[in-house]
């Protein structure tokens, strides 16, 4: 994929180290000045950022064509809803549990199909996503509440000591999780696992011949991606205090796909920008009702035309090893 030298813009911004604190400042102050409605928009922006980061592991890093990622998102949300409403398990404990449930499901379902390539894998993931959604609607064993979904989920918190129930608390909760996930992914990108994923994306056969266990690394990316999507499902379910099948359609998977592509494959800041576009755009243009989706579709086409590498493409180069100790990295070329 064409990777032109990063444009003048990204280099200026990258070098300006002072920019990071500015962003943090705005993020921290924003909820205290905006009304609840705008805090909630930022909350759902956070949810889509988390979902974008989770799909980025599978699609951005390893180049696996996954159009059914909303299935893992649904599993996380329903695991939380069912276990909380029926067994009263505290929701904060269910965050890791729903991530595990989605990861386990991904492992079981993806193992037999991980060898598929390109479009064949794509249709299987679509099928998987639809199977999950339809199973939720058909209410097996009377667990998922069918089309009505499951409602009445408690708020996360430590007993009555500290309960996350207001928009501001949810805002900081989601963005704390997004921050941790992003930090984790940036570290993974610079580790041998992250590089192994990129080798597989570039040329699967060559990666195998270079000594990389292609199958296990693909599976790892699906399992990790599913876990993060499961966690996002947990936080989403808790915020809406309930879940229903309408929120986990094939269109949600397409939105996640767009976030990674429009933002930039394998680029954490890019995914955040992609998530901003996908979540803020419809809300800002809500008043235009019918016409906003026309503009949304057009912008998607234009983005791919002018920035096929994404809004903020991943910068390759020696920076990939900069944090390592030892000799100065300046190339003497």
């Amino acid at each position, binding site marked *: 994929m064409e990777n032109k030298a990063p444009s003048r813009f990204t280099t200026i911004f990258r070098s300006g180290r002072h920019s990071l604190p500015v962003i943090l400042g705005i993020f921290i102050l924003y909820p205290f000045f905006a009304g609840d409605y705008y805090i909630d928009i930022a909350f759902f922006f956070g949810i889509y950022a988390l979902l974008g980061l989770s799909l980025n592991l599978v699609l951005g890093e390893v180049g696996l064509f996954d159009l059914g990622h909303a299935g893992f998102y649904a599993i996380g949300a329903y695991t939380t809803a069912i276990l909380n409403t029926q067994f009263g398990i505290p929701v904060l404990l269910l965050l890791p549990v729903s991530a595990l449930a989605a990861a386990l499901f991904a492992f079981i379902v993806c193992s037999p199909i991980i060898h598929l390539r390109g479009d064949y894998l794509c249709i299987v993931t679509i099928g998987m996503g639809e199977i999950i959604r339809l199973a939720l609607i058909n209410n097996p064993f009377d667990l998922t509440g069918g089309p009505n979904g499951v409602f009445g989920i408690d708020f996360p918190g430590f007993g009555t000591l500290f309960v996350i129930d207001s928009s501001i608390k949810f805002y900081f909760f989601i963005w704390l999780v997004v921050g941790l996930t992003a930090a984790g992914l940036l570290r993974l990108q610079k580790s041998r696992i992250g590089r192994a994923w990129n080798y597989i994306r570039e040329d699967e*056969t*060559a990666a195998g011949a270079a000594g990389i*266990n292609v*199958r296990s690394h693909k599976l790892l990316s699906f399992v990790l991606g599913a876990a993060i999507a499961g966690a996002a499902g947990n936080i989403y379910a808790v915020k809406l205090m309930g879940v229903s099948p309408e929120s986990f359609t094939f269109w949600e998977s397409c939105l996640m796909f767009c976030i990674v592509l429009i933002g930039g494959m394998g680029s954490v800041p890019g995914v955040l920008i992609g998530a901003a576009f996908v979540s803020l755009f419809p809300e800002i243009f809500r008043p235009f009702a019918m016409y906003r989706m026309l503009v949304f579709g057009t912008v998607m086409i234009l983005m791919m035309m002018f920035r096929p590498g994404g809004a903020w493409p991943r910068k390759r180069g*020696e920076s990939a090893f900069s944090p390592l*100790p*030892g000799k100065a990295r300046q*190339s003497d070329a």
Partner: protein
Amino acid sequence: MPEPSPQKDAPVILETRAITKIFGGLTAVSNFDLSVHAGEISSLIGPNGAGKTTVFNAVTGIYRPEEGRILFNGADITGNAPHRIVARGIARTFQNIRLFAAMTCLENVMAGRHCRTSAGLWASLFQTAGQKKEEARAVEIAEERIRQVGLWKARNDLAKNIAYGSRRMLEIARALATDPTLLVLDEPSSGLNPRETEDLMDFLKDLIHREKVTILLIEHDMNMVMGISDWVTVMDGGQKIAEGTPTEIYSNPRVIEAYLGAADDEEN
């Protein structure tokens, strides 16, 4: 003429016993035996379509032979996954170069270090001391390999942006980064000009002496085969038709008739 080959006394490190590979009716390779002795440069030659690359792919785990056994240092590696074979010490390059185009040369060579490092998800996420040390060591080894093939200046350029000859050497550097005991090269000199081929021959001969590595290569360039090979095996139509030292092969009638015969009217 090459020095007397350490041929017969050195142990056999790679042996294929009657391997057969069939692609939907076409028998690409039929009960083919090959033995490679430690520390030698062994060449596999033959006209196009003789099945050379298929043998390579069977040895390196890309294909699974329908029949026959492949032994490496005595252990049966038939049908193992490619990455397990690399871990055992067989590294390879490809006939048409397969690099990681959108990644830097250093990252390409780092791929070879993957099977020699062990940091797991936990270590990578929390950058434990062990992981940092291992990464630093891996970068150092990769940088040595890149200097060894003379690509130090291009280490931060993207693999797709460097010259064709450099790409060949980069692929070899990646293979060497796995610290192999057997280096399997698929037509390394194809596309190189005569001077680059000379450099490659010197590089390989020097490699044999400096490191305990054995080289098995497929080659069409006769003066390279004759120049550096200790042992030559000739294939035609998926079968072995001759083997021996370069001088024996050069005068072997069957080889000439099957292979070099066609070469006579070619201007060398």
